[in-house]
């Protein structure tokens, strides 16, 4: 089957987590017993994964979050031999779900002090924690010094440099209100006031990094105030102004587009077209799906046949607008990526190295009783008045029923001409767990994008990718100098064979996820590389021409491209 898939689609996946020594199983938090009748719905998130080469050995490692009290987070270090070892406990970042401290929801890596080592931010339903990377040998808890919020019920956080001062800042998006301790409820009035326009969720935090390990809350003065129910966020220079804009996918509401003008944000979702129709936004990620040098934004929602037909959104920017202007059209169904089921995390990546950005989307909300569904009970509450739905006690008990569970995953291959084809079952992506976070990483430095999927109350899966050797690739490892050292926000436009494609380094995107730092471009069969234009967060623009295929090309800001060996077998 694998050979057939490779010959037919150019790739095949094999789930290898146990062979790779990864036996992580997510455990959901157990919250206040007042929520017991609908506990599966409330405690339905927390499986996150973030990729980083934390020890700078040239091989991607990853961190996975757990959520039950006493459960351990894992930091899997790449052994370079196809296996991983959990070093979280040894390095001090395992026991983060202690009683009273909240439950981990996800994590993102970022070098906030530009010392060359990526530090670790864990966001929770609880107090966020910041751990300083001590040269890849241990982590030091610097939360108290950092001036992070006391408590945030967050399901997303990203690193980015919103003011382009060369120091990484933090965005944290609240879901439940920050005055709610889900383990010790004072009231059950915690639910959304509306299924479509709820604005009683958690507040947002924009924490400006000073570069010394301390952060300043600048949310209000930066204009980033919102109380929508944030689940996904992605930053990028979507308007071509040089400053990173911020797109937030909100549950129970519209997607927000915060335009960044020299460090000040303004919500313009309606004007740009994406903030109009309310849905159940879970994920926000960006990819150049048409090889136009611009990025489309993918927002995942809920689609359940016969019941709820929200469809996922693929917001594709119109061409020909002036710099600073952007306008999006939802082409998800036109291009074939509208139906993702009860979708959660999604990630773009050229999985078959054919030169076009493909899309993986995981899904499935609650898999319990295979025969019984909660949808009828859910329909009663979704249509009710705000006074009823905002009190969790009025929600019908789940009684072990499933809610869009056991769903098949989606992997859409992009023909680069505006059409995607769903092939997940054909290429080996066959699990039906309740997927949450999804990331890409070249775990074995083979020039292929592997998939890591974190499942709620399920195993963390590693899908090892086998790609046809006919297809070439190139990767970029960027390091900032005037910009933040991680080069988060840097955009590379690669030109080859008359094509071009844009990719951006992000400090987290999707749903509770951060994909690998290196940028991976598939090139197809006959790759004549022309150039790569790098737009650094500082504003500097660098054109690189001496590029090498089937290799990791390291580029340092204001320096020349210098292909170097970084440990990968095929690197040069």
């Amino acid at each position: 089957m694998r050979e057939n898939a490779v010959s037919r689609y150019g790739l095949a996946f094999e789930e290898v987590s146990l062979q790779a020594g990864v036996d992580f199983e997510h455990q959901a938090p157990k919250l206040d017993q007042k929520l017991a009748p609908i506990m599966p719905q409330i405690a339905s998130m927390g499986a996150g994964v973030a990729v980083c080469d934390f020890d700078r050995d040239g091989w991607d490692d990853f961190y996975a979050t757990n959520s039950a009290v006493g459960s351990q987070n894992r930091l899997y270090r790449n052994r370079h031999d196809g296996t991983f070892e959990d070093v979280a406990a040894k390095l001090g970042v395992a026991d983060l779900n202690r009683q009273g401290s909240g439950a981990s929801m996800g994590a993102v890596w970022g070098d906030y002090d530009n010392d060359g080592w990526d530090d670790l931010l864990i966001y929770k339903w609880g107090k966020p924690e910041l751990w300083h990377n001590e040269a890849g040998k241990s982590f030091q808890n610097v939360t108290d010094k950092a001036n992070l919020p006391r408590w945030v019920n967050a399901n997303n956080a990203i690193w980015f440099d919103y003011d382009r001062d060369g120091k990484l800042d933090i965005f944290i998006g609240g879901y439940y209100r920050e005055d709610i301790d889900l383990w010790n409820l004072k009231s059950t009035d915690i639910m959304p006031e509306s299924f479509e326009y709820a604005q009683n969720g958690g507040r947002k935090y924009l924490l400006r990094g000073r570069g010394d390990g301390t952060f300043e809350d600048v949310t209000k003065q930066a204009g980033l105030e919102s109380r929508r129910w944030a689940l996904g966020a992605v930053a990028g220079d979507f308007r071509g102004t040089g400053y990173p804009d911020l797109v937030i996918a909100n549950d129970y509401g519209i997607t927000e587009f915060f335009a960044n003008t020299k460090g000040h944000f303004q919500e313009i979702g309606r004007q740009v077209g994406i903030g109009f129709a309310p849905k159940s936004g879970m994920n926000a990620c960006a990819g150049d799906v048409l090889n136009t040098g611009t990025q489309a934004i993918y927002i995942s929602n809920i689609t359940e046949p016969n019941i709820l037909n929200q469809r996922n959104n693929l917001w594709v920017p119109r061409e020909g607008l002036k710099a600073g202007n952007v306008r999006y059209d939802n082409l998800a169904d036109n291009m074939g990526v509208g139906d993702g089921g009860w979708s959660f995390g999604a990630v773009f990546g050229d999985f078959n190295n054919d030169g076009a950005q493909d899309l993986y989307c995981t899904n499935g909300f609650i898999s319990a009783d295979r025969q019984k569904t909660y949808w009828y009970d859910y329909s009663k509450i979704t249509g009710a008045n705000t006074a009823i739905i905002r009190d969790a006690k009025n929600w019908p008990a789940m009684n072990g029923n499933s809610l869009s569970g056991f769903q098949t995953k989606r992997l859409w291959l992009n023909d680069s001409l505006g059409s995607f084809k769903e092939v997940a079952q054909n290429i080996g992506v066959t699990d039906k767990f309740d997927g949450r976070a999804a990331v890409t990483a070249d775990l074995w430095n083979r020039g292929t994008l592997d998939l890591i999927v974190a499942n709620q109350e399920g195993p963390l899966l590693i899908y090892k990718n086998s790609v046809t050797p006919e297809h070439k690739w190139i990767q970029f490892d960027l390091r900032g100098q005037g910009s933040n050292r991680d080069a988060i926000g840097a955009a590379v436009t690669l030109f080859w064979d008359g094509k071009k494609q844009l990719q951006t380094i992000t400090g987290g995107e999707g749903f509770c996820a951060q994909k690998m730092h290196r940028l991976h471009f598939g090139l197809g069969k006959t790759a004549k590389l022309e150039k790569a234009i790098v737009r650094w967060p500082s504003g500097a623009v660098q054109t690189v021409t001496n590029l090498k295929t089937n290799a990791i090309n390291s580029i340092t800001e204001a320096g020349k491209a210098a292909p170097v060996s970084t440990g990968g077998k095929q690197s040069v």
Partner: protein
Amino acid sequence: MISETAVPNTTNAKAPSVAVETVPKTRKFDQRYVAPIIVTCLLIASQSQFGVLNLKFTLSAIFTAIVCEIVLSKITTGKFPHLASAYISGISVGILIHTQFFWPFMVCAAISITSKYVLRWQGRHLWNPSNFGICAMLILAHENTATLMQQWDNRNYAIYLIWLVGAFTIYRLKRFHICATYIAAFLFYAFVRARFSPLGLMGGESLLNAFWAEAGPITGPMYQLFIFFMITDPKTTVGTKRGQMIVAFAVATMEMLIRTLANNAGAFADTNFYSFIINLGIHAPYFSLFLAGPLANVLEIAGRKAAIKIVVVESPSTVSAA
């Protein structure tokens, strides 16, 4: 389904076609345009505020409904029909159906209009056209069709808007007794379902919570639309005030049966039947009207026939005069 309300009957035996087809000679405003105007305003308000509709799909449904109306009217009566009824059938389909394809909108609109001409008895169509079309789609094309679980927000201002427009319409039609009967019956049945639910059996605050869960749907905007604009549809309700109240009660009773089945669907071992019941429950108001409405019409027509026979026996001259 929403918008057939207040449109004078063009195919109903209760309103002679001669009277309906006569174009008013004065410049007096044609009352048949009131309902389309109201529904169009609601649609525009919804679209500008919520943006939940795909206008291309809605327009395709309206277009299909109008074309079907013209063609079928020409075939069956040879006359060019008044298009208000078809327009609002199309707009109803556009509002209530949710799918990413064009064809369900067009098929649903075509079924709705065709049902008016085909499913008739004693010169009167039995089903609310768009209600019939939507239920047909939910059963026959369920993989590609959904109704809107969510629309118009859950907050109060949407309810205020609907009540404002609805009250105006119902005041004109003098049909608030239908709304009141349905609301009272729904709340009573919600209490009954809550009382015998596991939570309700605990009594006290739990009973109240169980009641709110069962009564939840009627407190949202979608049901306000249903109450004001669907069950009051003059073309598919019976003639007398008392009869109309009985029909409203019957619709609520049918919904009670459906919801009770759905609440207890776990007792059915057959997965297909279980799914069918859940499907009925999720779309309970549509199916309750689908089942109760025609039944009431049939009973009324049958009753009238029986009454006419009695009158014929007693006084043939009276009948011919009528």
